[in-house]
């Protein structure tokens, strides 16, 4: 008979302290809890500009003292998903279960207070104190922490004297002493050269971010705002935030959920606003439904390429997958491990994939990344790569050709104009430039010729593509030939030499 494989609760103990890679990821879990709790407003306060405390407050259903006790006493990692029979407000899809995310805040502080006033049932205020140096204690099998197969990671105590009648319905999580490293990093970021105070109007904040290369330049506070804006299930700044009404339906859906997130009084919206690029945009709408190993997988979204211009900040580049509207990790600049090198064009691309059904099993426990070999993830990856390789990038290349052609045409015309101007100044009469008809083979290389009439100076140039030199040199060669002919009109060699040099240098000033 095979032996059973078991997991010790110490594993969960470790997870309780090292699950999220950034404060935004930990806070995102609390925002998700608020969403599932039918909240319409979540307010995160970072104590900006001091950062000595953080709070997350929502106006949702709250949870009861009993639920909290159950969670704290073994329910973390074991909480049932909300029943499908209890639909969420405004047809929101259910994100997850209240669980370890509740302790995510432990990554920035060791003690916090949670106050919840449910719509039904008994509310509570409790102070949670997570043990210091837990990882050491776990490794050393400290008997105060590892009790048999159970791991005790901290303590909680109800504050029965607190008068809950004063509080509105919902949940408030408030840290006590935030870790000094966090406080310091955030305070320091306000002193960065490129730091600007985030305006309360998020659209204006996006304008600031569109002028920087990376969020690193503006520091951790902006990064927190941006990451929360990217990951929370909130609307875009406007229906036209992306070209050609790409997100119109998504915006209607997201607005319909009536879910707002504020950080320090700033109402967040998704951090993407692509308008006004000179060379325009190339885009594809995505919509796909399939079955993977018998499970439904449904996703839709968009991919947009900002033609000829890098996206700013860098963090907007790549593809972000959203499961039940919540961003998983960051925008992936590898485009889900796209295997072709598209050079700088990859830096023009951004996209979002909204996964409505499936992919949850592919989520890693941090809910910040995927198992990249999960069949559902692979299905999405293959689909996206097919679109990138077969449709998006070929279009982008075509656009590059179109733009290059237009650019070359414009440049050539400017250079012709420059040549005419330089010669006109030398001969003091209007100048006409024309190309000679193609010569017969065997006649040797064509030369430029000049003809002076009473009212104009005419130069006949060889056709550029007949000159036997590199394509990129032909226009310059032609110009030099023209200048040479003009210089030849001088009477002495010395004057010809002087004239040629002067005209050439003058012409090259604007080359």
């Amino acid at each position, binding site marked *: 008979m095979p032996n059973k494989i078991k997991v010790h609760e110490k594993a969960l103990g470790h997870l309780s302290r090292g699950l999220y890679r950034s404060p935004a990821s930990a806070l995102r879990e609390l925002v998700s809890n608020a969403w599932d709790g039918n909240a319409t407003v979540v307010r995160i306060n970072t104590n900006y*500009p001091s950062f000595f*405390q953080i709070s997350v407050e929502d106006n949702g259903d709250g949870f009861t003292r009993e639920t909290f006790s159950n969670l704290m006493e073994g329910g973390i990692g074991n909480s049932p998903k909300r029943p499908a029979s209890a639909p969420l407000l405004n047809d929101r899809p259910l994100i997850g279960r209240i669980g370890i995310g509740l302790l995510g805040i432990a990554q920035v502080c060791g003690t916090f207070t949670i106050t919840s006033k449910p719509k039904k049932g008994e509310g509570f205020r409790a102070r949670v*104190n997570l043990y*210091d*140096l837990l990882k050491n204690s776990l490794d050393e099998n400290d008997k105060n922490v590892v009790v048999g197969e159970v791991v005790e990671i901290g303590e909680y105590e109800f504050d029965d004297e607190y008068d809950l009648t*004063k509080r509105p319905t919902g949940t408030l999580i408030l840290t006590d002493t935030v870790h000094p490293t966090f406080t310091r990093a955030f*305070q320091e970021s306000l002193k960065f050269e490129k730091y600007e105070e985030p305006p309360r109007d998020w659209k204006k904040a996006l304008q600031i971010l569109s002028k920087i290369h990376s969020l690193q330049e503006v520091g951790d506070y902006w990064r927190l705002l941006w990451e929360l804006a990217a990951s929370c299930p909130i609307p875009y700044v406007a229906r036209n935030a992306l070209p050609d009404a790409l997100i119109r339906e998504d915006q209607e859906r997201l607005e319909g959920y009536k879910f707002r997130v504020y950080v320090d009084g700033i109402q967040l919206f998704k951090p993407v606003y692509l308008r006004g690029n000179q060379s325009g945009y190339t885009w594809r709408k995505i919509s796909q439904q399939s079955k993977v190993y018998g499970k439904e997988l449904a996703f839709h979204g968009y991919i947009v390429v900002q033609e000829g211009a890098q996206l700013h900040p860098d963090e907007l580049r790549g593809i972000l997958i959203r499961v039940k509207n919540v961003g998983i990790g960051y925008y992936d600049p590898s485009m889900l491990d796209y295997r072709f090198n598209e050079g700088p064009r990859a830096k023009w691309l951004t996209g979002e994939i909204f996964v409505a059904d499936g992919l949850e099993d592919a989520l890693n426990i941090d809910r910040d990344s995927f198992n990249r070999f999960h069949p559902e993830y692979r299905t999405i990856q293959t689909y996206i790569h097919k679109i990138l390789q077969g449709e998006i990038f070929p279009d982008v290349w075509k656009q590059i050709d179109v733009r290059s052609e237009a650019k070359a045409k414009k440049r050539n015309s400017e250079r012709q104009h420059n040549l005419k101007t330089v010669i006109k100044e030398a001969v003091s009469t209007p100048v006409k430039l024309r190309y000679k008809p193609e010569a017969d083979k065997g006649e040797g290389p064509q030369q430029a010729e000049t003809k002076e009439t009473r009212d104009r100076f005419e130069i006949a140039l060889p056709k550029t593509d007949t000159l036997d030199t590199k394509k990129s040199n032909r226009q310059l060669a032609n110009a030099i030939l023209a200048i040479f002919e003009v210089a030849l009109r001088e009477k002495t060699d010395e004057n010809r030499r002087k004239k040629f040099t002067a005209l050439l240098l003058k012409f090259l000033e604007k080359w």
Partner: protein
Amino acid sequence: MAEGLFKYEDCPLKHHIRKEAWLPLCKNRKRLLRQGRTKAARDRRLHYFTFCAVGAIDVLMLDVEKVIRPSNDRFDTVCFFDVNEEYVNETQKSIPGAIGFPGDFVEIVCADDPEEGNLIDDLAALTSATDAQDTLATRKQQACLAKRRQFILQFPFDVINFDLEGFLFQPNTPPPGRLMRAFRKVFEWQRRPLRIGTSQFTLDGFSLMLTTQIGPPNLPQDYRDELRRYLEENLDNDAELRPLLLNRTGVDNPTTLSANYFEDFFRLSTPKALANVLMAEDWYVDPDTGISLYEIERAWEGGKYRMLHLLMDIKRQNPDRDHRFAGPPPVNLLDAYRTVVRAIFERRETAVTDALIDRPAIDSHLNLIRARRAKYLGEN
């Protein structure tokens, strides 16, 4: 804001004082700023400190009245302290961008810091500790020091509002008490130069508001003795004061006053205690405006108590302590002090009662302030 978190926020009597006493004082301070010597000094915004701040109704009122000017809807020239994280959280929702410190004001202000005189790296306290382990106790210690240093760096303020709900003098510590010791530190830090960008300003004066409950009735004898000494000194130095005292309280002896008429004793001696602390830190009360007193009576289950509100303009001593010889206070300063003291004996406090206030005006003013709060909360 959670309903009732600050139960006197809507109190019309209290709001009358805000509107009719605090507001004119702050407006006057702003007017004085506009008379600054340089353009930068004239153009700068008013810096305001408030403790306790919960609800920040005073700040919102000054915003409505355009005395405080937020930048991009952020109250970056407002600093406040509150007793706990929850209150700070509530306040910052109402006045985003204000610099809020949670914790025990007195403990933080009076904490020992060997680096206080040389604050170069304000973030040093938040650097990873090399010897101590990463425990809650270590982190709390680091945070306390960091808060203190950052609080010091916010100084000076044009207006300071110590809006206490409790007693100024707490019997469990020796005189002058924890709060008075903290105030002294605050007045010391008020001498710091104000730095805004690359500009630096020296404060010639500021406005001070102090609210305290009158009491406690069982104030220990050592406190009473200390306060009585101020009164006796005043009486000894100015023969005209004793008749004024008699006229005002019915007695002319501070000992009797302390024993039998404690509230009058408190009203007369507390402003002087404060004036003396200010003088010790190189400031003095402007004799032209003196100290204004307002009072509210409140009921509680055990009876009634009174809240005393003190308002004053403060000036920097001239020449300041760095530019004069050590020795007894200059004559002009003593004259100013005498004038202020005499005014305290002469002028009675204004008792703010329902009969005095214009209730519709108060309600409508409060509504304006609530609307402003709703704007910052994103509820509009």
